[in-house]
């Protein structure tokens, strides 16, 4: 099953597209959690259950949005490509690997697009979970969450550097700068 999916990914040259969706939407997830965390911190709310509920709700919404939007748009694009190829081949390609790719690749892309922000969001809010479960953290859970969001953003920046072949520290620092600007805007507008 996985080898078949791998073959269809290679056939449609979708690896770069999935990688791009993972980074873009993972970045979305981390920045959104950073924004929520900072908003809670600025408002003075200290109930970890409230913070976790809001963050998990947002993470699920990000995941569902990612899955549904990518599925709808990718299905339309793949079906269009398939029809164009069928016209060129003067043949019905539904039962070929091209037909299978037109049906399965949108599902795979949608899962990557949805699971990236969901999983990264849930990772970022791990300190809030730990706080809720009664584990003592060295700093306030919201602060640790914000630091973890910055760390995840940095790692996604490093990943972008690895993909583009650029110096990893530069791309990581650039991603952190974007997160810092986001945090600065939140401080500016929320207080």
């Amino acid at each position: 099953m996985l080898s078949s999916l791998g073959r269809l990914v290679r056939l449609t040259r979708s690896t770069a597209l999935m990688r791009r969706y993972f980074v873009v939407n993972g970045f979305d997830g981390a920045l959104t959690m950073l924004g929520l965390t900072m908003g809670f911190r600025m408002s003075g709310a200290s109930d970890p259950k409230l913070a976790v509920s809001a963050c998990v709700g947002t993470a699920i919404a990000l995941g569902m949005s990612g899955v549904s939007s990518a599925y709808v748009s990718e299905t339309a694009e793949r079906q269009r490509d398939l029809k164009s190829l069928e016209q060129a081949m003067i043949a019905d390609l539904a039962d070929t690997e091209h037909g299978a790719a037109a049906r399965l690749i949108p599902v795979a892309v949608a899962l990557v697009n949805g699971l990236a922000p969901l999983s990264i969001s849930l990772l970022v809010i791990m300190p809030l979970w730990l706080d809720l479960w009664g584990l003592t953290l060295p700093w306030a859970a919201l602060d640790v969450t914000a630091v973890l969001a910055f760390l995840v953003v940095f790692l996604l920046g490093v990943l972008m550097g690895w993909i583009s072949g650029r110096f990893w520290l530069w791309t990581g620092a650039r991603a952190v700068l974007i997160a810092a600007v986001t945090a600065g805007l939140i401080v500016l507008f929320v207080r």
Partner: protein
Amino acid sequence: MVRLKQVTLDVLKPHQPSILEFANALGAQGADYQVRVRVAEMDERTETVEVVVTGTNVDLAELEETITTLGGSVHSIDEVLVSGAQQQD
């Protein structure tokens, strides 16, 4: 028993899979298959390729099925080489 030793096919296929992946998929159909694929003509979305498969007992139906699964279609069988019952490999 008469065996098909070599067959030359005229095939229309999409650009993907590439001719290397296409040849690998055909070669995987028989342990001793040798496959040569040559691009004869290239269009915007498709290409016409000449496929030559050599083996001790080439299964033409299986080859055609694999080509169809990969999105190609056999336009014609251009050349065949068979060995008769008494001939040795």
